[in-house]
């Protein structure tokens, strides 16, 4: 069920970018998109009986673990999301400095 919610969140992010013309709103919906994606990545590795992949000691075998790899990947994906958003905000700020508005439509010179 969470998987479907993740995909819908992903698609909602896309919708957000599609309709918004404000740079900050675009970045926010970009984040929504990335969050949806990260949740989807985590949902890939989930198992109802699984427990967190932290071993208390070498001996305990036979336990069912959740798939640790997606968690490692999501760690990296989140940080990459942070990187892109930081840069996006920086560009948004320089746009604001140049055009005194965040809205893409009313930038005067057509590009």
């Amino acid at each position: 069920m969470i998987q479907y919610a993740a995909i819908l969140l992903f698609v909602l992010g896309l919708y957000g970018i599609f309709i918004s013309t404000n740079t900050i709103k675009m970045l926010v919906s970009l984040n929504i998109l990335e969050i949806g994606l990260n949740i989807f990545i985590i949902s890939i590795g989930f198992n109802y009986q699984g427990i967190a992949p932290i071993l208390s000691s070498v001996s305990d075998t036979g336990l069912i673990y959740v798939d640790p790899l997606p968690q490692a990947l999501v760690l990296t994906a989140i940080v990459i999301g942070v990187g892109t958003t930081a840069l996006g905000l920086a560009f948004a700020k320089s746009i604001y400095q140049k055009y005194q508005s965040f809205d893409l439509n009313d930038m005067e010179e057509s590009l």
Partner: protein
Amino acid sequence: MKKLFGLILFMGLGVLIILALNNTISFPKFGSVDLSDRVADAYLDNDNVSEVGSANIVTAIVVGYRGFDTLGEVTVLFISALGVAFLFSFKKEKRLDLKFKPNFMLKHGSKLLFGIMLVVSLYIITHGHLTPGGGFPGGAIIASGVLLLYLADDKFRSNIKGFKVLEGVAGSLFVIIGLLGLILATSFLENFIASGTVGQLLSAGIIPIIYVLIGLKVGSEIASVVDNFLTEEESA
């Protein structure tokens, strides 16, 4: 009208993807994942765990098995910080004058709180291979501490030069450890220190060292990004 039309369209796309995923046989249903046919099974295998020596398998993957990813990912953060700094490189900066003026209590209370946050983040970073968490969350906590100081005191300017040096040194050390791995052991980022017994603090070879470096690097980078956003051109 365009909004509604767009919403229907994209929701349709979502539903379509869900349908497509449903009727692909080899895509495991949610929750019923058996690790046997996945590479993750090898990660959980006992002798592999003992060979890497890290209790927290996720950290084993993040820094051990897929250390190269993390190196790449740290570079991503590095370049974003660099980019933000590059975009706002003014001659003389001064603090963005916010309308909110903090009072005395906030200014000094936050310094105390910063100390506690620093200790917590150090704990999380050093115990990365035992308990959940590690370099990235620890680094984030350091940065949020710095952010707290910025918010609490509108005159506060952290030592940007210091953070830059820390960032550079941590990054280069990370790569140098990798190179050492190449020189001493067979391949880049290979573990050339004994991995000790699983669960001990001094276990899992180079993983904790790398995680500490990553924690410092992430903390300093995000801190400098925060500083860049909160400063503006000194209108001389």
